[in-house]
């Protein structure tokens, strides 16, 4: 009895020692909230330094004629001139259209294929774990590796892709110029992005499918609902928030698509695959039109932020249903 009492007392002492009050006492009268701030401050400082400050600085620069390669030149305010030039530049509108085209098709393809794969994997057939691993491989590769790898696959003379298409269609391999043909080059990039990121969508959809309780299907079975009816009335609605989440993530990511396009086509042929991020990079770090590039970046930021917010509200509504 005495022994257990002493254990309880020791535990109580230990608990008391580890309470914030005791910690505060040790650091000479600091309050709990002060200590909390001490711990949080580095993270907040870092966040301010690498996120908030650059954003505010970019907003400021977007109203100036500043050029990063001419640091000694006088910086003058130009009002809304940079915004006006960006919004009236046909090349930028072309790049925005190209970006929208990529985002639209990659999302459609990745969602349809990703959900289908998740649905199949969720059936838990023999060897499903093995196939899941195989499907996930592209997602785990570096975009640089994927870009170079597919550049060789698309090569008209030695590329496997050209051989496969030629074998299926009878078109000579030398005529299958995926990266050099104006009409094919955008699709070449969409195919690679879909190949690489469909597994990601599949993973999220799989999580959604696994979260649906079995008893709902059991109840549907009791009600003699057909498999088709179960799919449309249970599976799709309950997995929808997850699908929408995947669409949100992929949409934001593909809006910023840069590496894959650079590696595969460099924006060509002509400017057919020049997406917004490449145009922005050229303006900022090749032309050094820092002020104008900042204005373009802010416009892109507002567009993505605004669209994402609208989308998140829709997502929340779907979740609440």
């Amino acid at each position, binding site marked *: 009895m005495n022994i257990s009492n002493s254990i309880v007392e020791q535990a109580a002492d230990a608990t008391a020692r580890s309470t914030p009050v005791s910690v505060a006492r040790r650091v000479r009268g600091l309050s709990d909230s002060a200590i909390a701030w001490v711990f949080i401050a580095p993270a907040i400082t870092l966040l301010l330094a690498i996120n908030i400050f650059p954003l505010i600085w970019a907003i400021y620069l977007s109203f100036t004629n500043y050029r990063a390669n001419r640091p*000694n030149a006088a910086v003058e305010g130009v009002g809304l001139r940079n915004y006006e030039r960006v919004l009236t530049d046909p090349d930028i509108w072309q790049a925005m259209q190209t970006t929208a085209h990529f985002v639209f098709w990659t999302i459609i393809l990745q969602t349809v294929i990703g959900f289908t794969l998740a649905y199949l994997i969720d059936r838990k057939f023999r060897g499903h774990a093995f196939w899941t691993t195989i499907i996930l491989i592209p997602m785990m590769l570096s975009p640089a590796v994927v870009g170079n790898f597919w550049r060789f696959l698309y090569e008209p003379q030695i590329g496997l892709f050209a051989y496969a298409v030629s074998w299926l269609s009878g078109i000579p391999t030398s005529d299958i110029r995926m990266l050099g043909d*104006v009409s094919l080059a955008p699709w070449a990039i969409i195919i690679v992005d879909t190949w690489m990121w469909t597994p990601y969508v599949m993973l999220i959809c799989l999580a959604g499918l696994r979260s649906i309780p079995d008893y709902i299907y059991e109840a549907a079975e009791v009600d003699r609902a057909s498999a088709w009816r179960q799919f449309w009335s249970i599976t799709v609605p309950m997995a929808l928030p997850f699908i929408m989440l995947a669409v949100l993530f992929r949409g934001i990511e593909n809006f910023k698509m840069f590496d894959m396009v650079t590696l595969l086509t460099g924006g060509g042929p002509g400017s057919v695959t020049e997406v917004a991020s490449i145009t922005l990079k050229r303006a900022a770090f090749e032309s050094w039109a820092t002020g104008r590039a900042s204005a373009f970046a802010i416009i892109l930021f507002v567009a993505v932020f605004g669209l994402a917010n609208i989308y998140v509200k829709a997502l929340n509504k779907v979740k609440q249903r």
Partner: protein
Amino acid sequence: MQKKSKALLGLASALMLSSALPNLAKADELTLCWAAWDPANALVELSKDFTAKTGTTMKFEFVPWTNYADRFLNELNSHGKLCDLIIGDSQWIGGSAENGHYVKLNDFFDKEGIKMDDFVPATVVGYSEWPKNTPNYWALPAMGDVVGWTYRKDWFERPELKTEFKEKYGWDLAAPKTYDQLKQVAEFFQKREIDGKTVYGASIYTERGSEGITMGVTNVLYSWGFQYEDPKKPYEMEGIVNSAEAIKGLEFYKSLYDCCTPPGSSNVYMVESADAFKSGQVAMQMNFAFTWPGLYKDEKVGGDKIGFFPNPAEKAHFAQLGGQGISVVSYSDKKDAALQYIKWFAQPDVQAKWWELGGFSCLNSVVKAPGFATSQPYAQAFLDSMAIVKDFWAEPSYATLLQDMQKRVHNYVVAGNGTAQEALDGLVEDWTEVFKDDGKI
């Protein structure tokens, strides 16, 4: 125990400091920045003599061509101290001079007796002067380079091909002298079966991302009569850049791309072009002269199998200048030592060794030496090419001007959008806007 630990810690710190301090104070080490390519390796070899003579250790910062401009222009714009010496691209001169990145070398040259007259005139204008054609020097010509051609001499010498070619075109199959001849040769070889393999006519520059297609198409444009501006009215480009001759030149380049390049040639620059040649895919290859020593040494296509020729002529005769000058970075803490390196590098015997090792010297005493033209199989083609060079804009806004040309030309030549007239009219509009932004017009 605690005291012992503290003592040990103190001792370790003291040791670390004592070993670090001499390095911090060391001023006899120079960092030279350049692109990562064969001539850079030759320079490493050459610089060993400088170290042996002066005791100054040379460090090298070499960056692949794809990142070369991004990396080093960022370094200069941020006033970085990484590079004491930089071998910067010829187009950087204007911006680097006006923005104070490079040390002006006039006084140093005067003091050390280094004369610009001793160097090939085109390289002085191209690599050293800003404003152009004025005696204001920001670099010492370091690596002469120019676009020219290599061809499969062994294929050209095959009797059956020679006969067939002569019958078809009425002249002997040989290195072409005009662009029309070049196209005929390219057409002759296009999709021809040689040693059981399908080969193609020519590899030409078509790269979109950096400067590739501009460095290719300008060769042809110049030879058709294209000029950047009215010689009498600076920055006046209407009717000059988009002259009838320039339009014909651009149409020719597109026709060459359409008729005679290997499939999948939509994004070709230096490396891809050399690869097409090395893999035995093409009869002729457009490329900068710096690739020639490596190609000549190649076991499969080099030696007796390779030939070299300068750009063909048409109405005029020009070649796109490449190459670079060596400059002292004004943010360096070791400017004096860097200047000593330039002084050493400018010496005739060092320049002669530079050529022997695979670098392309710009010093007259080297390139005009009796025996130079026969010193290497490509020496004559290099000399002939350097005599006809012309360079892209070297304005501070050259990068924007370059991007505009990349976009317009690639859109027409590779993507097949619009006409040559539209492409060059658009280019005049783009360039006019750039110069208006710069306050030059």
